[in-house]
C-alpha cells in the first residue's frame, strides 16, 4: 500500500491532493490554536479573578507571581535548599521508583510466565494488591523504612503491581504460533523467553513505562508530604502550612513540567523503537 501511495505522489500532485493537504494543515492548525487559546484563557482567568477580588488571592496566587517566586527560591527556600535541589530530589526519586518498578515488575512477570502454577496461586493477591489504595501505607512506610526510603518505597509500591499485571498480560499474549515456531527449532524455555516473548513484548514494556512515570511521581510526592524535608512534595506541604501559595503553585507548576517532560521522553523512545519494527 505504501508503494501505491509513493507511486501516486511521484506521479505529480493533483490540485485535489493539494487542496486536501491544505485542508489537513488548516485543521491541524485549528486544533493547536484552540489548545493554546484554552491555556491562555486559563492563565488569564487565574490572573484576573484573584486580582479583581472575585476569588481570594490568598488561596490561588497568580501566574505572574510564579516566575519571581521561582527566581527568589533558586538560591534558597525557607528550608535551606534551593528549589532546583528540591526538584532534583523529586525527579531522582521518581526515576529510581519507576526504574525499580520496571525491573522488578518484569522479573516477577517473567517468573509468573515461567511457572503458570505460580500465577494461578498469586493471581487473586495481585489483583487485590493492585486495587489497594497504596497511599494508605504512607504513614506505615514512614515507620518501617524511615524518611528517605519510604519515599522510594511508596513510589515503587504504587507502580509495581500494575506493572506486573500489564507485563504479564503482554508476555501471555505472545502469539502461540511464534512460540511453536521457536519450538520446532528445539528452543528451550529460556530461549523462548529471550528470543520470542521479551522482544515481542517491547510495546507492552513501553506502555507500562508510560503508566509508571505518572504513578511513580504520585508515589514520590505523597511520600514527601509525609516524611521528607526535601522535594517538591515537601515544599507543597510546607508552603500550604504557612499559607505561601506562591511556593505551592510554583512547585506544582514544576511538577507539571517535569511529568510532561518525562512523558515526552518516553513517547519519543516509543517512536524510535516502533520505527525499527
Amino acid at each position, binding site marked *: 500500500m505504501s508503494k501505491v501511495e509513493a507511486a501516486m505522489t511521484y506521479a505529480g500532485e493533483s490540485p485535489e491532493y493539494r487542496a486536501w493537504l491544505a485542508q489537513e494543515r488548516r485543521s491541524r492548525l485549528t486544533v493547536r490554536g484552540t489548545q493554546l487559546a484554552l491555556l491562555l484563557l486559563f492563565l488569564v482567568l487565574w490572573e484576573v479573578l484573584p486580582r479583581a477580588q472575585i476569588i481570594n488571592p490568598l488561596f490561588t496566587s497568580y501566574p505572574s507571581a510564579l516566575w519571581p517566586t521561582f527566581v527568589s527560591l533558586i538560591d534558597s527556600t525557607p528550608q535551606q535548599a534551593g528549589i532546583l535541589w528540591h526538584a532534583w530530589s523529586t525527579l531522582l526519586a521518581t526515576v529510581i521508583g519507576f526504574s525499580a518498578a520496571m525491573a522488578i515488575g518484569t522479573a516477577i512477570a517473567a517468573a509468573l510466565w515461567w511457572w503458570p502454577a505460580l500465577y494461578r496461586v498469586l493471581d487473586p493477591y495481585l489483583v487485590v494488591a493492585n486495587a489497594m489504595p497504596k497511599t494508605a501505607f504512607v504513614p506505615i512506610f514512614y515507620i518501617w523504612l524511615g524518611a528517605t526510603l519510604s519515599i522510594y518505597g511508596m513510589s515503587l509500591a504504587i507502580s509495581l503491581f500494575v506493572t506486573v499485571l500489564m507485563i504479564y498480560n503482554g508476555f501471555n499474549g505472545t502469539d502461540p504460533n511464534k512460540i511453536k515456531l521457536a519450538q*520446532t527449532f*528445539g528452543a528451550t524455555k529460556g530461549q523462548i523467553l529471550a528470543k520470542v516473548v521479551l522482544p515481542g513484548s517491547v510495546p507492552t514494556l513501553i506502555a507500562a513505562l508510560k503508566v509508571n512515570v505518572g504513578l511513580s511521581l504520585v508515589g514520590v510526592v505523597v511520600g514527601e508530604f509525609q516524611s521528607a524535608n526535601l522535594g517538591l512534595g515537601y515544599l507543597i506541604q510546607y508552603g500550604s502550612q504557612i499559607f505561601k501559595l506562591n511556593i505551592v503553585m510554583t512547585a506544582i507548576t514544576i511538577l507539571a513540567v517535569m511529568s510532561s517532560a518525562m512523558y515526552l521522553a518516553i513517547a519519543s523512545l516509543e517512536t524510535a523503537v516502533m520505527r525499527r*519494527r
Partner: protein
Amino acid sequence: MSKRFPPPHPPPQAGEGDRPPSPDAPPKVELRDVGLRYFGRDRETEALKGISLAIAAGEFVAIIGQSGCGKSTLLSLISGILRPTGGAVLIDGAPVAGPSRKVGYMLQQDYLFEWRTILENAVLGAEIQGLDMGKARARATQLLTRYGLGQFLDRRPRELSGGMRQRVALARTLVTEPDIVLLDEPFSALDSQTRLALADEITEILRRERKTAILVTHDIGEAVSMAERVVVLSRRPGRVKSDRPIRYATPDGARPKPLAARNAPEFNGYFNTLWQELEVHVEG
C-alpha cells in the same frame, strides 16, 4: 550433514504406502500405529488413531483431510514438539525424542518476527540451535538471494509482500539444513496467484535439494499437483483412509512442475477420486 548410521535390522513394516528405496534402509520417516489424545478438563479428544505410514528419503507426500482431522497434529508429532500417546514415530529408524535438526517445519503463516530484519529472521533457527552463525548468515544470504530477496536482507518483514515473507520462512527452514521438511498448509494465507506460483517454486526447491517433504493441506489440487503420493485422513479420530501414488506420464519421465501437473490429463482423475474420498466423510 551427518547421517545417522542405520540400525542393523529395522523391523519390517507392511503398509500399503511402504515403498522404501532399498529394502535394507529404514524409511526416512515412519509412524507405527500412532495415536494421539488431547486431554481437556471436560473431555479427552482422540485426534489420531492407529496411523501407520512409512515415507522414503526424498519422497514428497501430501496428507489431506478435512479441517480438524489431525493433519497438523501429525506434523507436530513428526517434528517432535508433541509426543504420541500411543505407538511410535521414527526418523531414520530411531524414535523421535524431541525436535531435531533433521526436521524443518514450515507453519501455516510465516510468523516472521517484526523486530528482526529479514536476514535475522532467516537465521533464527540456526541461532536457537547454536550453529556457527557466520556460516548460517552466509547460507541465509545465499538462499534469500536465490529466492529473489537479495536486496531485502536488512528490511523489516512488514515491508515485504505475503509471498516474499513466505519465501523468507522457507529460507529460515532450510538454513538449518534439515533432511525432512514439514509443510503445514504453507500457502493458506496467500492470494491464489501467489499461491500457485509459490507452490511451483517451493516444490522445485525441495526437489532440487532432495528433501523428504510432507505437505499437509485441505486443498486437493495442491496435493495432487505437488506430491508424488497422497494420503487421505478420515475425520476425527484421524486414520489413514487411503494412500495412493500420483504419477504423471511425461515424455522425459520427469515429474512435471505443479502448475504443469494441473494441466496434465491425469490430474482430474486423481482430483475426483480424492474428492470423493473426502466427500464420503462429510456425509458419514
